[in-house]
């Protein structure tokens, strides 16, 4: 354990970890939204993110974006990417709901069946992208660098880059927007009503199916934004990227309290920081081990995650 390496640069590691976790947090929102309303782990959400990264990449390459265009064009590309990513991911998420889950819900299938269906959808999407991209060789896909990384803030030796800043800001903005949407608008009220008691909500005139499509779309939208941020910051994608990110995001959602929007943010950021800390203490290869151990410890003391389940009601 190399404590010197950690504590000498603890500020820097924290910032790096937060920026890493912000993307987890956005993807985690998708898990949390669906879980909060349907009590269902949407394992296909990882592929929703993956589809978003590809859509954004193709858009950028398609309109002939080069490396590090001028700042105006870069912003335009990011916004365009965000819109395309949100549309693609949201569309995929809704499609998954309509094609796979809706039938199962009608049949009142047990939750394991949803899980296996989700895995099937996930596998199919991964394979489709694996076979039809990169010449069938399943290689990683590079894309133009939209924004050059540079140091935006240098505070007491802690360097925060422009990309990290954008990722963090975007994650917080999306989070606040979503929170407001769920808590303040009429649609959000419908979501909360269904989350609390689907049957009563249906009696009160809430269209349950529409609400469910809405939450899948919202989760997909967040994943799409995460996708464009991912592409901007890391500049590559791959057919199987969803699995890695999805696993982390799901862990983050549980850590914060699945079903709880703020929990997803807290869990994501925390997971990012834990990973960077422990990778510094030992090696990157151990970061997952520590992430899971922290998860188990947290769950032992707080069985419903750090902030508890709260989109609807907390369960006993």
């Amino acid at each position, binding site marked *: 354990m190399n404590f010197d390496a950690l504590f000498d640069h603890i500020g820097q590691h924290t910032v790096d970890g937060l920026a890493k976790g912000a993307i987890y947090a956005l993807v985690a929102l998708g898990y949390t939204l669906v879980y909060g309303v349907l009590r269902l782990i949407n394992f296909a959400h990882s592929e929703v993110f993956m589809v978003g990264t590809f859509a954004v990449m193709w858009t950028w390459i398609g309109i002939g974006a080069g490396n590090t265009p001028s700042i105006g064009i870069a912003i335009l590309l990011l916004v365009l990417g965000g819109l395309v990513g949100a549309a693609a991911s949201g569309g995929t998420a809704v499609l998954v709901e309509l094609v796979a889950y809706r*039938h199962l819900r009608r049949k009142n299938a047990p939750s394991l069946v949803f899980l296996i269906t989700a895995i099937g959808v996930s596998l199919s999407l991964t394979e489709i992208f694996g076979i039809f991209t990169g010449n069938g060789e399943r290689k990683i896909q590079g894309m133009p660098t939209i924004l050059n990384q540079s140091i935006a803030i240098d505070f007491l030796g802690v360097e925060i880059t422009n990309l990290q800043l954008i990722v963090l800001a975007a994650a917080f903005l999306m989070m606040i927007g979503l929170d407001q949407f769920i808590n303040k608008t009429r649609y959000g009220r419908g979501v909360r009503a269904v989350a609390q008691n689907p049957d009563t909500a249906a009696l009160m005139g809430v269209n349950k199916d529409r609400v469910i499509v809405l939450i899948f779309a919202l989760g997909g939208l967040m994943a799409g934004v995460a996708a464009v941020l991912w592409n901007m910051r890391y500049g590559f994608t791959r057919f199987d990227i969803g699995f890695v990110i999805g696993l982390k995001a799901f862990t983050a959602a549980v850590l914060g309290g*699945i079903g709880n929007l703020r929990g997803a943010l807290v869990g994501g950021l925390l997971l990012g920081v834990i990973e960077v800390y422990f990778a510094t203490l030992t090696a990157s290869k151990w970061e*997952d081990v520590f992430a899971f151990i922290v998860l188990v410890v947290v769950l032992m003391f707080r069985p419903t995650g750090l902030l508890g389940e709260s989109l609807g009601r907390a369960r006993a």
Partner: protein
Amino acid sequence: MTANENTVTKKKKRSFADRWNGLPGWSRFFWIMGGVIFLFYLPELGNIPGTNLEIPGLGFLRTDVGVGGSDWDSILFRCAVFVLIALGLNVVVGLAGLLDLGYVGFFAIGAYSVALFGSQQSPVVKLLRANFDLAPDWALAWSWCILLAIVLTMFSGVLLGWPTLRLRGDYLAIVTLGFGEIIRIIARNSTITGGPDGITAIPGPEGAPNAQNKYFSILDQKWWYWLALVAVLVVILAVRRLENSRVGRSWLAIREDEDAAAVMGVHGFKFKLWAFAIGAAIGGLSGLLFASQQAFIDPSQFNVNLSILFVAMVVVGGAGNMAGAALGAILLTYLPERLRSLGALEFLPERFQDPAEFRYLLFGLAMVVVMILRPQGLLPSKRRARELKDRAQEVPVNG
């Protein structure tokens, strides 16, 4: 006398399970014996043993027909090992209703226990020899490795279950998933497990792998399949006893309604732990067989996708039903292998001709379709009616 006499509502359609349960005991017995004989005959599928004759059509089912296929006996062995896994996981997922996404961890522990303590090449064996003044060719005998694998996996099952089984189902899923990953990462990154290089020369029933071995040879896998088949049959008998006992009843009660079960006096935690430990032991046994047959393991063979595949086997086949879980395991192991040697599909455009390339896509789509059409799995679980028809009337009035 009709079989349905004492039922309240009459079924219109008799399912396979109903028909099966309606058969008299002796007839079921002969069917089962016939089935077992057929299972032992499988390596010769399509041939009539001892003759040069073949049964037309059956040979087509083998995986070694066509170009690029795999050895039929090896695939049978793999099917048997995965059936064993599905049976073990079925105890956890199907009977007790606990979603375990890290089952591969137990599979790995079973495999590593025979590799680390049985192989001449293992760092653990070398360490033990050096520190305990053992013979230079010392290694734990295979038969002791079986015991060790079962003990170690049961212990790890309890170790994992103790803190986590108090969690609700969905949380359990992610924690077990993490457990599977942790086992793999440790196996890969520590030197005592042989690291990423893995362990070679893992012994079998006849000792270290050797071309001269009489039955469990490197080249002919038939005996390996028969060994795995025996293990499967033993496990089926054992799990059946549990399933039809009050232990199995307690598992089902927990699965159906944990709170109500607790109020009826079922000690939920204890039985969940038992389910975990028993499931883990079966997973460990299958890992041991897998490692012994392959004689080489490395950590990359135990990734999370395998765990998910295991759960898929159980659910696609029919959670809670041993026959279903076994069917799921066989289909999900056999089909990709059979598709591999299908040969080019020349009626399709060039891009789509190679079925091997598409087999996992087909596999994923099939999973979705099966689940949508048959959410209960291919062979849904159905509680067997007890043979009570006469006794119900013998009960004294006003007991």
